[in-house]
């Protein structure tokens, strides 16, 4: 189970928008920390209850495309399905030559319960300056959000 760890991501300053820099020991942890980083940008550090679940299965041609899609999916759940993530279970990221897939069980609560903490709205996760990096045994990503 992946839980929010603010030491695993940080906010990037940007004139008009906002971004995050996240890290992980594996692609799965990297995807989880990017999701928590995005939640942090929207809500700050909050504790969210585990009352609902959502299953996500996504595939795309590259890791970059998959990361954008993964975060956009979580943003869509927040925006339309009133679902705010608490923690992430059974998270796997599989990479092949022509396809990358992510599978996860999201645990969370009704986003409307936390409305008073919400600082901003993310229009979309962008491809701008999207980066993946691997050094030693760590994985890093940079993502900019249009807000």
């Amino acid at each position, binding site marked *: 189970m992946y839980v929010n760890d603010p030491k695993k991501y940080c906010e990037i300053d940007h004139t008009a928008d906002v971004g995050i820099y996240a890290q992980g020991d594996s692609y799965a942890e990297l995807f989880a920390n990017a999701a928590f980083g995005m939640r942090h940008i929207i809500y700050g550090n909050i504790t969210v209850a585990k009352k609902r679940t959502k299953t996500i299965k996504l595939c795309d041609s590259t890791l970059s495309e998959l990361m954008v899609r993964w975060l956009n999916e979580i943003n869509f759940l927040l*925006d339309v399905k009133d679902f705010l993530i608490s923690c992430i279970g059974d998270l796997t990221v599989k990479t092949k030559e022509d396809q990358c897939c992510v599978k996860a069980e999201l645990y969370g609560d009704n986003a409307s319960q936390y409305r008073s903490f919400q*600082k*901003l709205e993310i*229009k979309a996760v962008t*491809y701008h300056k999207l980066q993946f990096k691997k050094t030693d045994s760590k994985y890093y990503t940079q993502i900019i959000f*249009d807000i």
Partner: protein
Amino acid sequence: MQYKNIKIEKIHDNLYQIPAFGDMHVPGRIYASESMLKSIIAEDESIQQVINVAQLPGIQKYSLGMPDIHWGYGFPIGGVAATDLQDGVISPGGVGYDINCGVRLARTAVTKDQIQSQMPKLISNLFRNIPTGVGSEGAIRKLNEKEMQRLLKNGANWAIEQGYGETEDILYTEENGKLDWADPSVVGHRAIERGRSQVGTLGSGNHFLEVDVIDRIFLPQEAEILGLYLNQIVVMIHTGSRGLGYQICDDFLKILGKATLKYGFTIPDRQLACAPIQSQEGQDYLSAMAAAANFAWVNRQVIMSLAKDTFQQTLSISPSDLRFELIYDVCHNIAKIEEHEIDGQIKQVCLHRKGATRAFPPHNRFIPEKYYQIGQPVLVPGDMGRYSFVCLGTAEAMAQTFGSTCHGAGRLQSRKKAKKMGMGRDLFAEMARMGVEIQAKGRATVAEEMPYAYKDVAAVVDVMDHAGISKKVARLKPIGVIKG
């Protein structure tokens, strides 16, 4: 002036040119004063983005930057480009995520003196009656899919049919509040889902509703035709297509990303994904984008109607005494098929305006009869403390910028920096000292949007005025603001 290894040529005091080199099909042109251009070069990568846009297949004449240019996704904000309708491309990066983000301005028949004492109550009521901020849901019930299809097809007319506004508002809305080629069937289910509960919502970020007073008139005759006079109260609304537009942009960035490869285009930035305008992918984007534009016009129409009702109730004034009437509504983020003179011939082009305003001249058939002699009204909002401007389009704009001008001030500081600057300060009191009554969902929004976080819009408007692209008519001073 130098940018990297490139020599930027001075055309005149307010216009600079980047000669075409490498993969650029046309030169880049930036409207700016010398000091402004120096800041633009120092601040971000928007000059590079002008160069990138000049590489789009089928681009005509110039890749243009307005004086409020700043970095954006793909195109810079304040970027204008026309592409050949037959051989050119269309790019969602030339429109932006907030499709048809725009501004409308309504006049009233009341003056500052008449409402000054009631401003706290008025702003409070506007804040209560107009859904603002993140997660805000509409003043209109959540629409079913069939009703959404009608809304997306009919634009502002849909809102009028529902009782939000007057029939003649349509006359004073760019494109009469409806792009005919909108096709809801190409709008994805997710976009519809995101938009269903957001009709009539202001949203967050830099979106606002502002009560302004006219504090300067530059062109008295033109101001009279626009129905503007000193000390008069006017209302400015800035919002767009909300989640529906964001989702359409995102969906089509993916589709056009594949199309870019399919048609063998080499682009310098993933966010400049594009497709031939005449291809299925290009036509589908154009039709979906039009649907989002129609949504945005409905949104602004509904909010204006809510504002009008709130004015009437708060001031206990009859509609005939209030005379809350639309002056004009302009798009800031859009792609449209327009005719422009290129190399002495009239040509149909796909005009991308991203963070730019249409500025058509007098005697143009696309502007309302009332403004036929003076040109199209151009609305340029500034920050929430200083001022905004009403300008008019000119013949020079048609000749030089495909009938386009600037759209606003542009940020000076990041949101994080602005928030840091606001720490430990009573920002509401500071705004009150500036004579602005403000209500917002959160203190953070106010901190991010404080006047010091923005450039001076007067400098931006002056560049376009001096270049003859759009003429200043009146200045508006905010006295009340609601924000998300």
